[in-house]
């Protein structure tokens, strides 16, 4: 997997006024990397993710995956949304099997594959339940399994744990790392939580507030599992926080 973002900018038209959302974003995402995109709300981090997913075209610049330009949603990438966006009329296992179903995989095979991802997220006994019978944390795990089931190279996660309480959030952070280690996917993870980014990422792309520019890309070389209470963790967190705060003061 090779994902390249070359001088990508995005401009929105709002009430006949041009409003730049993102300016000149470039980076090469490494294979099997956990990259967090961090920034204040409204900085365009979700827009960046949506452009990578092929849901929106960039105004300028290009995004390529394995040297092919991203021109629309493709099967190399799967997106996970903050609101889970599971299909409430489908059972958990049918939700996970959705991606295979639309690729015309036969029922037996897709149920088997979906079952294995159900095991991966530890919800084996909930396969026949409906999403509304599950807690928020469980629903987001199902959404992760649904994305993984099409075996994409890249997982795009848009503030996936933003709607969850702190405890569930911490639990899922540990879980997503486990899944990442097991499946060796490349993960792009949008968040506005410095703590979350430092806990998860190999590298953090810190964006400025709107219009979003790359402030700095911070490599985190702390070994995993990371200890939030360790001095090293605190040091990096303070540094990343300063990148965001400093900008706020300049503004």
């Amino acid at each position, binding site marked *: 997997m090779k994902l390249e973002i070359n001088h990508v900018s995005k401009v929105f038209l709002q009430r006949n006024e041009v409003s730049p959302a993102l300016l000149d974003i470039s980076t090469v995402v490494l294979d099997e990397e956990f990259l967090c995109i961090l920034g204040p709300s409204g900085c365009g981090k979700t827009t960046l993710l949506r452009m990578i*997913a092929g849901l929106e075209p960039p105004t300028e610049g290009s995004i390529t995956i394995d040297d092919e330009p991203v021109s629309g949603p493709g099967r190399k*990438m799967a*997106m996970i*949304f903050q609101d889970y*966006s599971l299909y*409430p009329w489908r059972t958990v296992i049918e939700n996970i099997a*959705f991606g295979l179903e*639309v690729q015309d995989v036969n029922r037996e095979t897709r149920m088997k594959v979906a079952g294995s991802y159900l095991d991966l997220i530890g919800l084996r006994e909930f396969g026949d339940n*409906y*999403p509304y019978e599950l807690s928020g944390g469980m629903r987001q795990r199902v959404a992760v399994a649904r994305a993984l089931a099409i075996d994409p190279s890249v997982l795009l996660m848009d503030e996936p744990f933003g709607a969850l309480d702190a405890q569930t959030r911490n639990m899922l952070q540990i879980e997503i790392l486990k899944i990442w280690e097991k499946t060796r996917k490349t993960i792009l993870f949008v968040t506005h939580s410095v703590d979350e980014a430092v806990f998860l990422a190999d590298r953090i792309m810190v964006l400025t507030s709107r219009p979003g520019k790359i402030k700095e890309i911070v490599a985190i070389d702390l070994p995993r599992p990371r200890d939030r209470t360790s001095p090293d963790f605190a040091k990096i967190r303070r540094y990343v926080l300063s990148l965001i705060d400093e900008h706020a003061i300049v503004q």
Partner: protein
Amino acid sequence: MGFTLKGFLKSFPFLKIALPLIIIVLWAVLSTLINNPFILPDIASVLEVLLHPVSDIQGSGSLLGNALISLGRVILGFSVACLIAIPLGIVMGRSERVHDFFDSAVQMFRPIPPLAWVPLALVWFRIGLTAMVFIIAIGAFFPVLLNTLDGVKSIKKTWVEAAVTLGAREGQVLSKVVLPGALPTIWTGLRVGFGIAWMCVVAAEMMPGTNSGIGYLIINSWYWSQVDVIIAGIIVIGIIGIGVDFLFKLVERKKFMWRELDR
């Protein structure tokens, strides 16, 4: 816990049956006071008609037979309305341009009562099934269309986006996401639409020259001053209306529970 009188009294829906009971008592009192079956017949004579649903009334056919004829017509007209309104509502909900193309016409025709079309229907189709189906279809069309449109428009954007990133093609997005996602709202439209269609059939059957159906039976009984048949007919119309509505609601509760629970 066994059966207790107290428990029974507590759970019995007194409030819900109070008014119907009052109406029945009032009817009994008034019919005795008026003492004229050509104005208000007594309960017994109406019951007499209701309890013989298959016996012929003045050569106009039976109560049940005519009700079934009406039901058949309404199903026909309702189906025609759905076949046009549901697909149209879906494309209008999915495409801004299609929406803009149809919207002003829809807004213009929507407030016209279905019965205002009766004379035109008679001119265009003469008296007969086609004219009735036309009136019924117009009555059912708008609630079905507007609810379909609303259902499609209120689909979560991320439902569609998730499907697309998972590799769904446009047709699959439609059949596996948009349609099931909008179905509860479409169903509400069907329920409302059927209710209006049912009102329309009765009125359409009162058009001059009709010779069957529950509406015809009622209007014909007026010519013959059979007020007991008129009232029995009205009661049958009400019962069928409630019955169909109940069936719609039953499916709603069984199949579309997720709409209330998925919050």
